[in-house]
C-alpha cells in the first residue's frame, strides 16, 4: 500500500514538472502596416493596402507565406490561419485586397493590371524583410495560399511572377465566365450574391455593422459599391439580360487563371470543395490540367466543404497546406522534404464519409488517395443502363415556379457545422423528364462527371438542368449528391446532345437506383421567360459513370498494431509468467525420511510489519503420535499449520511431510487432511454435496474417500441433505472434520477441533482421534483446552511467541512439573513454560 502511494505521488510530481517545463506555444503578434502600392494599366494608381505581418516564430530567415482572403472578407478573415502558420516558422503576410476592408482602391476582380500588381509589390516588400529567406536579391522564398477570391489571386500571381515558389489555391475558379455562365446559362443567384459582397463597405465591423446607422451613399456607391466602374458596368449588363456578352466574357476571363494557367511554374496544391455550386470541382480540374500541362507539379484535393457548406475540415486542410509548403518552401531541392513529407504527397486525395467514430458516434472522414490525378473521366467507367420513355416537359412562363437544387448561401448561413446534405431538392411537376436504372446489384462509387446522351425535340433552343439522383427506396426521398445540377443548352432542332453531369464523389449503395432527371427550370439560374414544351428522351440507354478504383483500394491491410499489440501482449504475458515461476525445490524424499510424517526445521515467517509470527521453529512428529500443539493466542500455531498446508510461504526453513518439502500444491499434501481456522463450505450446497464435490475436486477415485465413515463422524443425520447455510456452528465444525478425514489421510491436522461441540461429542471426538492414530496414522491437534490435550495426546509441542518452548511426550512434560499438592497438571506446566506463573 505504501509503495503504491509512493508511486502515485512520484507520478504526480513528474507530471507537474513536465507540465511546467513543457514549452508553451510561442506568442505570435502581428505588425500592422499600411503598404503603398502603384498599379493600374499605366502603373499610375496609388493604393494603400492594409496589411498585417506575422514574423516567424523560430526567428532567423524563414520562408514567407502570403495569405489571401475570400470575396467580401478582409485580412482579419485569415488571421487565425496566419497565426498558426507563423507558429510553424513561416513569415506570414496578410492583406486586405484593394476595395476590401480598410484598403483603398476598387475591386478589379483579380485583374493582372490591378490586384496582381499589388501582390507583386507585396512580394517586393517581403524581399526587404530581414527575417524572410531569399532565393536571390529581391526574390524571397514565398508561397501564396487563399480560398475563393484569394485562391484566384494565388494562381494569377504565380502566373505573372516567377518568384512565387508554391501555391495552395482553395475553392477557386479557373474561368469566372464559365463559373457564372456554365454552358452559357446565367447562374443568377450565386452571381448576385457574389457581386453584392463587393458592395458598399460598412464603416463598422462585426456586430456593430448591423446596429450602426448606415452612412448615406453617393449614387455611384449605391450603384457599384467598391467595384471598379468597368467591372460594375459589365456585371449590370449581364445580370439584366442573363446573357454573357463577348466583352463581359473577355473581362471575366482576363481575371481568370484560364488565361494564364499554362505559365504557372510554382508547385500547386489545388483544394476544391465537394459542396460547391459556385466553383464546382470542374473548375479545379481545368486548373489542374492547365498547370500540369506546363510540367508543374500539381496535387488535387476534394474536401468536405466549399461555398455550400459541409464540414470545412479546417485541421485537415491546415495539415495538407503545411505539408505542401514544408515540401516546396523549406527545402532547396524540389519535392524532397527534410522530414520525409514526400511520402505523404499524392496526386489526388479526396474526403469520403467513414461512418461513425465508435467511441463518440461522431462522423469521421477518410482520406483515400491515388498517385495520379485521374481527371473527371475517372480511370475506368461503368455503364449503367437507364430506362424511360420519351417524355413531355414544359418550360413555365417566366420560368416560375422553378425547381430547387442547391440554394446558394444557405450552406454558408448554416455555417461549417452543417452536416450532411440538407436535401432540399425539388422538381416541379410537368417540368422534368426522368430516367431510372434498375436497382444496382453492387455498390457504385462515382468519382467524376457521368455522361449521358439525350435527344430533345421541340421549338427553339432548350435550356435543361441535368441532375443525378440517388434513389434508396419508395419510402426515402431521393438525394441529389451535393445538390449539384448541370445546365445544358440544346440548340434548336439539333436533336442529340451529350450531357456532362456535375462532378461529384458519391457512393450509390447496392439496391439503390440511379435516376437521371432533366428539368426545364432551376431556381439558381436564369431561364427563358417564354413558355415552351419539348419531348426529352434518351439517345443512348446507358449512363457512363467514371470511377477511380485506386481510391477504393483497401488501405494496406489492418493497422499494424492490430497484430503487433496482441503479439507483444502475449510475449509480455509469457515473460510475466516465466519470471514469476518460483524455483521449486526437488522433493528430496530420502527413504528414511519418507517415514517421518512431519519434520519442521528452522521455520520462520514474519508478518509484513517485520514482527515474526514463527521464529526458528523445529520439531518432528513420528508415526502413530497424537501431537498436541499448544500455545497462547498469537503463538504462531495457526501460521505454522497454514505453512504445513502450503498456503503460506515460509521466509526461512522448511516443512517436510513424509520427506517431501511442502510447497504450494505439492502432491504430498494429498496425504494431509486438514481443518484449520474454521470450516469452509459452499453455503448454497448441502453437506453431502459439499463433501462429494470436495472429494471430486481432489481428483481421486471415489472408493478411496471412505465417505460413509467420514459422514458417521460428522453425525449430521438428515441434516446432511440441507444447505450448509442452515447449519449451526457445531454442525459445520463436525462436517469440516469429516471433510478433513476424507480419504483417511496419513497425517491429520486439526485446529481447535472441539470448538462448538457438546461434551458427549467432545468425548466421542477424543476416541475418534485416538483410534485414528492407532492405525499407524498421525494426528496433530491444536487446542486451548489443556485438559483435552492431556487426555487425547501422546505428545505435546508448546509454542510461545513463534518459538518452540518444549516438545516431547505428555508424560515427560508432566514429569518435569513441580508438584503443588495434587498430581501434575498440564495447565501448570504450560503456564510455567510460557512464563506466566500461577
Amino acid at each position, binding site marked *: 500500500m505504501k509503495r503504491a502511494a509512493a508511486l502515485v505521488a512520484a507520478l504526480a510530481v513528474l507530471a507537474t514538472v513536465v507540465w511546467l517545463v513543457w514549452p508553451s506555444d510561442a506568442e505570435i503578434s502581428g505588425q500592422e502596416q499600411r503598404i503603398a502600392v502603384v498599379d493600374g494599366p499605366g502603373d499610375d494608381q496609388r493604393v494603400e493596402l492594409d496589411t498585417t505581418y506575422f514574423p516567424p516564430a523560430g526567428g532567423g530567415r524563414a520562408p514567407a507565406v502570403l495569405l489571401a482572403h475570400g470575396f467580401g472578407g478582409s485580412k482579419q478573415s485569415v488571421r487565425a490561419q496566419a497565426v498558426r502558420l507563423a507558429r510553424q516558422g513561416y513569415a506570414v503576410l496578410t492583406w486586405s485586397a484593394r476595395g476590401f476592408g480598410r484598403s483603398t482602391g476598387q475591386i478589379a476582380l483579380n485583374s493582372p493590371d490591378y490586384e496582381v500588381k499589388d501582390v507583386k509589390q507585396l512580394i517586393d516588400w517581403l524581399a526587404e524583410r530581414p527575417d524572410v529567406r531569399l532565393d536571390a536579391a529581391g526574390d524571397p522564398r514565398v508561397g501564396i495560399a487563399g480560398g475563393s477570391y484569394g485562391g484566384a489571386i494565388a494562381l494569377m500571381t504565380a502566373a505573372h511572377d516567377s518568384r512565387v515558389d508554391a501555391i495552395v489555391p482553395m475553392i477557386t475558379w479557373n474561368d469566372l465566365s464559365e463559373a457564372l455562365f456554365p454552358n452559357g446559362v446565367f447562374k443568377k443567384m450565386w452571381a448576385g450574391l457574389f457581386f453584392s459582397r463587393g458592395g458598399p463597405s460598412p464603416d463598422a465591423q462585426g456586430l456593430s455593422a448591423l446596429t450602426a446607422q448606415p452612412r448615406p451613399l453617393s449614387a455611384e456607391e449605391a450603384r457599384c459599391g467598391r467595384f471598379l466602374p468597368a467591372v460594375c458596368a459589365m456585371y449590370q449588363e449581364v445580370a439584366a439580360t442573363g446573357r454573357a456578352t463577348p466583352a463581359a466574357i473577355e473581362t471575366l476571363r482576363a481575371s481568370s487563371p484560364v488565361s494564364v494557367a499554362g505559365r504557372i511554374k510554382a508547385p500547386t496544391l489545388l483544394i476544391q470543395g465537394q459542396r460547391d455550386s459556385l466553383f464546382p470541382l470542374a473548375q479545379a480540374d481545368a486548373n489542374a490540367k492547365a498547370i500540369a500541362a506546363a510540367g508543374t507539379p500539381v496535387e488535387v484535393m476534394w474536401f468536405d466543404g466549399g461555398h455550400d457548406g459541409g464540414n470545412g475540415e479546417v485541421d485537415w486542410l491546415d495539415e495538407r497546406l503545411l505539408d505542401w509548403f514544408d515540401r516546396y518552401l523549406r527545402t532547396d531541392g524540389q519535392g524532397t522534404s527534410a522530414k520525409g513529407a514526400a511520402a505523404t504527397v499524392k496526386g489526388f486525395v479526396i474526403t469520403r464519409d467513414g461512418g461513425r467514430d465508435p*467511441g463518440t458516434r461522431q462522423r469521421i472522414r477518410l482520406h483515400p488517395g491515388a498517385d495520379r490525378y485521374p481527371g473527371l473521366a475517372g480511370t475506368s467507367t461503368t455503364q449503367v443502363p437507364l430506362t424511360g420513355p420519351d417524355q413531355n416537359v414544359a418550360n413555365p412562363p417566366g420560368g416560375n415556379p422553378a425547381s430547387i437544387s442547391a440554394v446558394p448561401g444557405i450552406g454558408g448561413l448554416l455555417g461549417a457545422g452543417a452536416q450532411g446534405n440538407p436535401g432540399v431538392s425539388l422538381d416541379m411537376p410537368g417540368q422534368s423528364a426522368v430516367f431510372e436504372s434498375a436497382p444496382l446489384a453492387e455498390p457504385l462509387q462515382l468519382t467524376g462527371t457521368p455522361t449521358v446522351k439525350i435527344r430533345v425535340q421541340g421549338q427553339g433552343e432548350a435550356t435543361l438542368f441535368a441532375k443525378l439522383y440517388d434513389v434508396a427506396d419508395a419510402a426515402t426521398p431521393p438525394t441529389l449528391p451535393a445538390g449539384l445540377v448541370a445546365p445544358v443548352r440544346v440548340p434548336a432542332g439539333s436533336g442529340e446532345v451529350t450531357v456532362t453531369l456535375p462532378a461529384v464523389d458519391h457512393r450509390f449503395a447496392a439496391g439503390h437506383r440511379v435516376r437521371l432527371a432533366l428539368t426545364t427550370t432551376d431556381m439558381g439560374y436564369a431561364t427563358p421567360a417564354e413558355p415552351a414544351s419539348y419531348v426529352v428522351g434518351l439517345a443512348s440507354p446507358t449512363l457512363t459513370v467514371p470511377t477511380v478504383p485506386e481510391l477504393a483500394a483497401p488501405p494496406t491491410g489492418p493497422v499494424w498494431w492490430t497484430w503487433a499489440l496482441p503479439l507483444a501482449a502475449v510475449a509480455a504475458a509469457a515473460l510475466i509468467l516465466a519470471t514469476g515461476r518460483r524455483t521449486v525445490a526437488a522433493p528430496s524424499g530420502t527413504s528414511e525420511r519418507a517415514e517421518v510424517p512431519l519434520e519442521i526445521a528452522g521455520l520462520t515467517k514474519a508478518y509484513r510489519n517485520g514482527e515474526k509470527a514463527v521464529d526458528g521453529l523445529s520439531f518432528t512428529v513420528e508415526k502413530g503420535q497424537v501431537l498436541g500443539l499448544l500455545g497462547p493466542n498469537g503463538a504462531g500455531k495457526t501460521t505454522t499449520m497454514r505453512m504445513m498446508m502450503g498456503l503460506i510461504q515460509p521466509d526461512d526453513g522448511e516443512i517436510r511431510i513424509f520427506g*517431501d518439502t511442502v510447497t504450494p500444491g505439492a502432491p504430498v499434501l494429498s496425504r494431509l487432511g486438514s481443518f*484449520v481456522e474454521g470450516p469452509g463450505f459452499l453455503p448454497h450446497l448441502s453437506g453431502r454435496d459439499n463433501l462429494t464435490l470436495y472429494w471430486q*475436486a481432489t*481428483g481421486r477415485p471415489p472408493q478411496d474417500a471412505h465417505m460413509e465413515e467420514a459422514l458417521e463422524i460428522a453425525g449430521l443425520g438428515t441434516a446432511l441433505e440441507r444447505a450448509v447455510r442452515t447449519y449451526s456452528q457445531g454442525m459445520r465444525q463436525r462436517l469440516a472434520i469429516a471433510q478433513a478425514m476424507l480419504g483417511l489421510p496419513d497425517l491429520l491436522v486439526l485446529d481447535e477441533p472441539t470448538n462448538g461441540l457438546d461434551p458427549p461429542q467432545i468425548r466421542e471426538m477424543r476416541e475418534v482421534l485416538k483410534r485414528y492414530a492407532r492405525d499407524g496414522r498421525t494426528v496433530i491437534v491444536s487446542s486451548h483446552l489443556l485438559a483435552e490435550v492431556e487426555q487425547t495426546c501422546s505428545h505435546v509441542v508448546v509454542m510461545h511467541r513463534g518459538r518452540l518452548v518444549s516438545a516431547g511426550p505428555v508424560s515427560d512434560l508432566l514429569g518435569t512439573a513441580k508438584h503443588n499438592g495434587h498430581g501434575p497438571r498440564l495447565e501448570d506446566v504450560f503456564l510455567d513454560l510460557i512464563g506466566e506463573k500461577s
Partner: protein
Amino acid sequence: MTTTAAPGYAARRTLPLRVEIVRQFKRRRTLVMFGLLLALPWILVIAFQFGPQNTGQQNALRLSDLATQGGLNFAAFALSVSASFLLVVAVALFCGDTVASEANWSSLRYLLAAPVPRDRLLRQKLVVALGYSAAAVICLPVMALIAGTLVFGWNDIQVPGTGETIPAFDVLPRFGIVIGYALVSQLVVASLAFLLSTVTDSPLGAVGGAVGLVIVSTILQAVEALGSLREFLPTFWNTAWMDALAPVLDWGGMTKGAAVSVTYSAILIAIAFRRFRRKDVVS
C-alpha cells in the same frame, strides 16, 4: 520422483471442469443472472407492445425505431441496449466472483490443500467463469431472436441510419460474428474482474472494480481531446459489432477492438496467475 502422493492422486485430475461447473451453477447469483438475461427480451417485447405506436415516416432511423421490424432487428436492439452495461455486469460477476467468493467462504484454502495446484485452480476457474460469461453473452441475443421472431416475425434486417434492408438469411451468419465479437470485447472486463478476484477476498470488490473500470473508460472515450489515444481504451470498440450489420461488412473496427481486448486480457490474466502463484492465502 518419488511417489509420495496419496494413491490415485494426480495433479492433472484435480478440480475437473465438471465439478467446478456444478459448484458454481447452483448459486443464486448464477440463476438470477441467467433468469434476468432470459427474461429481458420478453420485458422489452412487452414494453414495445404497450408503448405508443410509431406512425408516419421517420427521417433518422435509429436502432430503437427499427426494433419492431423483425426478430433480427429486435435482437440487434436488445444487444445494443445491454452490451454496454448489463452484459458487462454479468461478465464481471462470473469472473470477478469466482476466486474471491471461495476466499470469502474459506473454502479456497481447503481446495489448495487438497491439493489443487494453484495454476490449475486458476485455470479451471477461469475456464468455467469464461464459459458462464460466454453463455450469458450468447443467451441474451439468442433469446431476443426467439422472442422477436415469435412476436414481430421473421423479416429482413433493416439497417439503422440508411434504412437499407439485408435479407434475413444473409445476415444470420453475420449475427454469429456479432455475438463472437461481443464475446471477445468482453474479454477485458472478464480478465480484469478475474485479476481483482485473485487479489481481494471480497467478491463485490472484484465485480465493482471491473465495472468501475468500464465506467471510467467510457467517460474517457467521450473526451475527443484524447484523439487517437482513445482507440486504446478498453471500451472504445465495444459497439464495433454494429459494423457487422452494415450493408457492407467492415472488419476494421472489430479487428482493432479484438486486438485491444486480447492485449489487455493477456497481460491482466498473466498478472493474475503470477500474483496468485506467490500469494500467501490467509483467508
